[in-house]
């Protein structure tokens, strides 16, 4: 896999998630294009490239999720990075049974990966709550309500992954995936 297109697409997806996707907010959650990008790479790239791409995307999400802490900004690097690393391992385990260029497969992969990543994210923040003066993002609420919010996020993101996946599949020849000819897909 060529890394330059991935990094450019990741930067674009991050900016769009932060600035534009809230226009599509439904039930308090906005869909994620970063997840669609990672799912696309997970279905097309080699196992090691897919894993590294997921970790980079997860860390990028961590870096874009500051939380206020005593009047300052606290950025915890790791919860989404670990979550995406775990999620991609699950996806790689099942991708042999999926059609790699099917848009429905993209949606399923996004859902599986985000649910697995959210599980790790909740576990990581629950573990952090044991540290002195560390407050989880859900405050005095329940971790289950936070997980429920991420369930809605995964559902909505998987729906958006269908049009996003269609656009990404148009560009498949640029990415240098193994076994893909250097010309655009024709439908």
């Amino acid at each position, binding site marked *: 896999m060529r890394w330059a297109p991935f990094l450019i697409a990741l930067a674009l997806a991050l900016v769009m998630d932060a600035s534009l996707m809230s226009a599509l907010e439904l039930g308090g959650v906005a869909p994620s294009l970063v997840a669609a990008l990672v799912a696309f790479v997970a279905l097309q790239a080699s196992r090691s490239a897919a894993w590294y791409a997921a970790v980079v995307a997860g860390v990028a999400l961590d870096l874009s999720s*500051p*939380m*206020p802490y005593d009047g300052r900004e606290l*950025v*915890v*690097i790791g919860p989404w990075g670990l979550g995406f690393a775990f999620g991609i391992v699950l996806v790689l385990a099942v991708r042999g049974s999926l059609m790699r260029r099917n848009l429905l497969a993209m949606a399923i992969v996004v859902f599986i990966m985000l649910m697995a990543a959210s599980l790790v994210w909740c576990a990581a923040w629950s573990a952090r709550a044991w540290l002195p003066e560390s407050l989880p993002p*859900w405050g005095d*609420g329940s971790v289950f309500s936070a997980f429920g919010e991420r369930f809605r996020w995964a559902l909505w993101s998987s729906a958006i992954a269908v049009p996003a996946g269609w656009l990404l599949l148009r560009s498949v020849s640029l990415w240098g995936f193994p076994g893909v000819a250097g010309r655009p897909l024709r439908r």
Partner: protein
Amino acid sequence: MTLMPPAWLLPWSADVAAIAWFPLRPFERALSALRSMLRRPAEIDSSLDERSQRLAEERDHYRGLWFGEQLRAAELAGRLEAVEGVRRIDRSASRPVSAPVLGRSPTPGSKTLVLEGGTDAGVRTGDPAVVRGDLLVGRIVGEPTAQRSTLALVTDPATGRLDARVVPRPRGGASGSGGDDDGTALVPIQLMPHPGGMLVGEVAVGAGVAEGDVVRLADPSWKRAAQGMQLGTIRSLRPLDRNPLRLRAEIVPEVALDRIGAVIVKCEESP
């Protein structure tokens, strides 16, 4: 790094994030403008034309200031009773700075917004931000850069406890905006942000509080410009199971704070 204590992360992690995001900031402006075109920001009242909206904002702004001064007068009266002399009163003024919302965290549940407006415009850490004149949105956290700042919403669990006053509406058909001048006392309440995007607190039964009453900030840990600003209205009052003599109040902001397109930052100026 995931399990590092906050004290270890604070000195450097926000700087790393700022450096990583630096090349992406220019694109945020265009995309946030596109977002405003696709979906109307929550602070815009579609039932009012532009002129009426400005007038309503101005009215709410001065109403907020009036409540702030009312709280200040009550505080000074308390001080006068306690001490013989009165120190010189801090009369710092606030200067409004309009700041469009450029972005927010791409992950769900986050209650911080990135604003276009930083130290060049006079924005400082702790400055409060409002919409529609006196609806408090949150306050600036972290170190603002020359052009950007981060706003933590009042509904963010990390904001912690908020001291506030309930402004009971005059009962029995009288008109007015409530408060001491209407013969009704402001009721103190301590609020905690709730993950559902609201604030919750407790009041005593018989305190004269009812659903629909407005709640305003009266918290000395916030800057003066934030005092008296509106936090929201009481959506429900229910008796607590563990103490039937107290009521659980749920306060909801009048606009969806995470769908705001622009805020007014009240930058404090030195006297």
